[in-house]
Each structure stands twice: as structure tokens, then as C-alpha cells.
């Protein structure tokens, strides 16, 4: 099947075609730029909610419950769940679907698991493009579950409109939240596993940390968003409708204040910069590195015959590149 035939099926609402388009984008297949160009043109600004937090916090369970909550209204939803690729073998076990069993019966929900494939920011490097595919397909709401390795995962901030940070009352978590910079990225905090001891105290602690941050913020006349804390017991569906209402409030707030638009434009700017960087890198590799044996040069540097800077000047024809710009008032 050509990619045009595939796209025709995709725009006819064929789920198999959606899955194949996602693979094509994820694998950076030869045709992916052309396909993505088309997908970008069909985007309708689906709302994107990111769910992040340490391993086992209950991210998948919460995603499952939110989706369940909205499924019956017929909301078109996409779910993207990211798990880590083993740096040693390149393989991965993607297990988030275990918690999303009951969603299979809804045709308005599409779930896709992604491996990070070497990316370290909490999402795979193709995740944002996969969100574009889901959007172009007609999804209105996309839930994105990050890897959750514990450290701050900044990709989710760039990729999503509302970032939900999930924590659990386990000792040390609130201090850790501060250390890891989770306070800065959270639009909504969830204290999940509220059935466990210490949940209330944990939430109060977190609240006071948030208040300190609030008081330290420069005074401004513009309304700003106060990060709320929601307590949940995800497997029992407790607190989930509260959580969804809070997410909707944040959505309404950022749309009303123009933050949504600014943020989306920033995302697009990042995408454009990334396209330019990729193109320049590829061009430069072709121009300067074809026919050059870097291993050989590295041996030379190791043996002390040359330093790496002089080696680049000597072997990589950089002068030709500089000549292009000569005389230009850059």
C-alpha cells in the first residue's frame, strides 16, 4: 500500500490505517515527512492531557478511569502510554495496557503503547508527532502517560496542554517533589492511593509547599492558576470525576487567558526549529562526513598525532561551508 492509499483509509476513519500511520511516523519511515505534513494540515487542536509521576504511582489506572468516565458520552479519545526501552538490548516490555482492559469495548478510544527508543525526557522523540496523527484522525482528547522514571520529565510540558503530576503518600515524596522540580511543571497535583496511611498529611504538606511558592511569585495583575491538589483512589474510581472537573477548569482557564494559544505556538516553533536542525545536521553530515573515517581519525587523536579540533579542520572540509557564508552579513 502506498502512503497515499494509507492516508485515504486513515481519513475515512479506518482504525487499522491509524495504527499503520502511527508506526510510519514512529519509525521515521522514508515517507514520514510527507505524511506528517498532511497530518499537520488536518489538525483540529485536540486537547492534550499529560499524566506524569514516579513508577507505580497509578498513572495507567488513572488514565483508564478518566477514559471510562468520558467514554459513554462518545468523546473521541486517544491514549498514548510510554514505557522505557532497555538501553542494553533496544527491546522493551510495554505494560500500561494491563490497567486499561475495560476500554477495549469502546470504539471511540484508541490506545497506543510507545517505547522511548533512547529518548530521555519522559516521552519518545516521535510521541508529539503521534499526537498529531491522533488529532488529525479526529480525536478530541488525548491522554499521554509518561515513562515515570522519577526525575522531571520535561517533554510532557512541551507536548501537553494540562500536566497532571501524580504522587503517592509514600514517605519522602513531597520533599522529592520539590527537589525534582515537579512543582514547576504541575498544573494539577494528584495524591493517589489516598486509601493509604498518611495521604491527608501528605496533601497538607504539599499544600503548604505550594502556598510558599505562591507567596514567592512576583505580584501581577493578571489572573494566575493556583495548582490544585486532588485526592484519588484510582482503582475504586474515587476522586476521578473531581480530577476531571479540575482538568476542565484548567483547560477553560488557559483558553480564556490566551495561554493555550501561546503554548501551542511555542510547540509549533519548537517543531520548526527541530525540522531545521535535522535538515542542517543531515546536510552537514552528507557534506562533511561522507568518505571520512572518523574511527581512523579517533585513533590518530588517541595516538597523539593530532588534536580533535585540528583534525576536524583538516579532514572535514569545513572551509567549503564557511565560504558559502563569506561576505554575508550574518
Amino acid at each position, binding site marked *: 500500500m502506498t502512503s497515499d492509499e494509507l492516508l485515504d483509509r486513515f481519513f475515512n476513519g*479506518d*482504525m*487499522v490505517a491509524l*495504527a*499503520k500511520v*502511527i*508506526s510510519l511516523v514512529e*519509525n*521515521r*519511515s522514508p515517507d514520514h515527512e510527507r505524511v506528517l505534513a498532511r497530518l499537520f494540515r488536518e489538525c483540529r487542536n485536540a486537547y492534550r492531557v499529560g499524566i506524569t509521576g514516579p513508577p507505580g504511582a497509578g498513572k495507567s489506572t488513572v488514565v483508564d478511569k478518566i477514559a471510562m468516565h468520558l467514554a459513554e458520552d462518545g468523546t473521541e479519545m486517544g491514549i498514548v502510554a510510554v514505557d522505557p*526501552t*532497555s538501553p542494553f*538490548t*533496544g*527491546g*522493551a*516490555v*510495554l*505494560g500500561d*495496557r*494491563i490497567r486499561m*482492559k475495560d476500554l*477495549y*469495548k469502546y470504539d471511540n478510544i*484508541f*490506545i*497506543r*503503547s510507545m*517505547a522511548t*527508543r533512547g529518548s530521555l525526557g519522559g516521552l519518545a522523540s516521535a510521541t508529539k508527532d503521534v499526537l498529531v496523527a491522533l488529532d488529525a484522525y479526529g480525536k478530541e482528547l488525548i491522554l499521554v502517560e509518561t515513562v515515570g522514571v522519577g526525575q522531571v520529565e520535561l517533554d510532557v510540558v512541551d507536548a501537553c496542554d494540562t500536566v497532571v503530576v501524580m504522587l503517592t503518600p509514600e514517605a519522602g515524596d513531597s520533599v522529592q517533589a520539590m527537589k525534582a522540580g515537579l512543582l514547576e511543571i504541575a498544573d494539577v497535583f494528584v495524591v493517589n492511593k489516598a486509601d493509604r496511611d498518611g495521604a491527608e498529611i501528605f496533601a497538607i504538606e504539599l499544600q503548604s509547599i505550594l502556598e510558599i511558592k505562591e507567596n514567592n511569585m512576583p505580584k501581577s495583575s493578571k489572573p494566575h492558576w493556583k495548582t490544585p491538589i486532588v485526592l484519588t483512589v484510582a482503582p475504586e474510581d474515587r476522586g476521578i470525576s473531581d480530577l476531571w472537573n479540575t482538568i476542565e477548569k484548567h483547560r477553560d482557564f488557559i483558553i480564556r487567558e490566551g495561554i493555550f494559544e501561546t503554548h501551542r505556538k511555542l510547540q509549533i516553533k519548537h517543531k520548526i526549529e527541530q525540522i531545521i536542525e535535522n535538515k542542517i545536521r543531515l546536510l552537514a553530515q552528507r557534506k562533511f562526513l561522507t568518505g571520512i573515517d572518523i574511527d581512523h581519525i579517533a585513533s590518530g587523536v588517541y595516538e597523539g598525532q593530532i588534536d580533535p579540533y585540528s583534525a576536524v579542520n583538516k579532514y572535514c572540509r569545513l572551509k567549503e561551508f564557511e565560504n558559502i557564508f563569506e561576505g554575508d552579513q550574518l
Partner: protein
Amino acid sequence: MKRIRILMAKGGLDGHSRGIKVVARALRDAGFEVIYTGLHQSPGMIVKAAIQEDVDLIGISILSGAHMAIFPKVLELLQLEGGGHIPVFGGGIIPSADQKRLEKMGVKRIFGPGTRTTEIVDWVKKNLGDV
């Protein structure tokens, strides 16, 4: 770059997931992306997940005796839903007569209990070479 993706599911009502998890990890260690969907998967769940995840292979483990119900239904649904090209293999306690019947129906291979993971990994590698 294309990565080979494999769906691993536990069909039937038994709660023994140790074996399938060991296989899932072995496949990961061999460099595959394994989507593990957990226990009690119905044919409908398996097929939908396989299609959404655009997998190259489906592995189903059944210990509860439900194999003659689950495998044929999975094959049928795959045909119906546009996943007829995805090969299916299985594992579990399956009498050899049933094994032959299932393989005739189109299940590519059934591995019995106690199969070494290296044997499964080798089979997958050899088979997905043709995909």
C-alpha cells in the same frame, strides 16, 4: 527505524502469569518491543490491542483449557477486523491432538509447558524474518 512489535496476552481464566512474563522479558532481551496486556484477555481484547498496536506477531498463553475456544476466535476476528496478516503463536498446556488442529487452522506454532525461552526467541527471530 522499524522495530518488531509483539503482543503477549494471557487468555482464559487462570491466573498464572509467570510463564508468559518470563517469555516477554526474554523477547525484550532479544531486542523486541513486547506489548504485554496481562491476564484474562478475551479474543476481542487481544485482537483490538493487536491492531491498535500494529504488532507483527501475537503470542497467547492459555493454561485453563480454553484454547479451542480462544485461538479460533482470535483468528476469525483478526480476519474480520483487518489483522488477518498478523501471525499467531501460542503456549500452554495443550494436548497434542488439539495442537495439530490449531496449527491446521492457522496458529503458527504452539509451545508446550517447559519450553526453553531460547527456543521461543529463536523461533520468533526465524519467523519474523519472513514477515
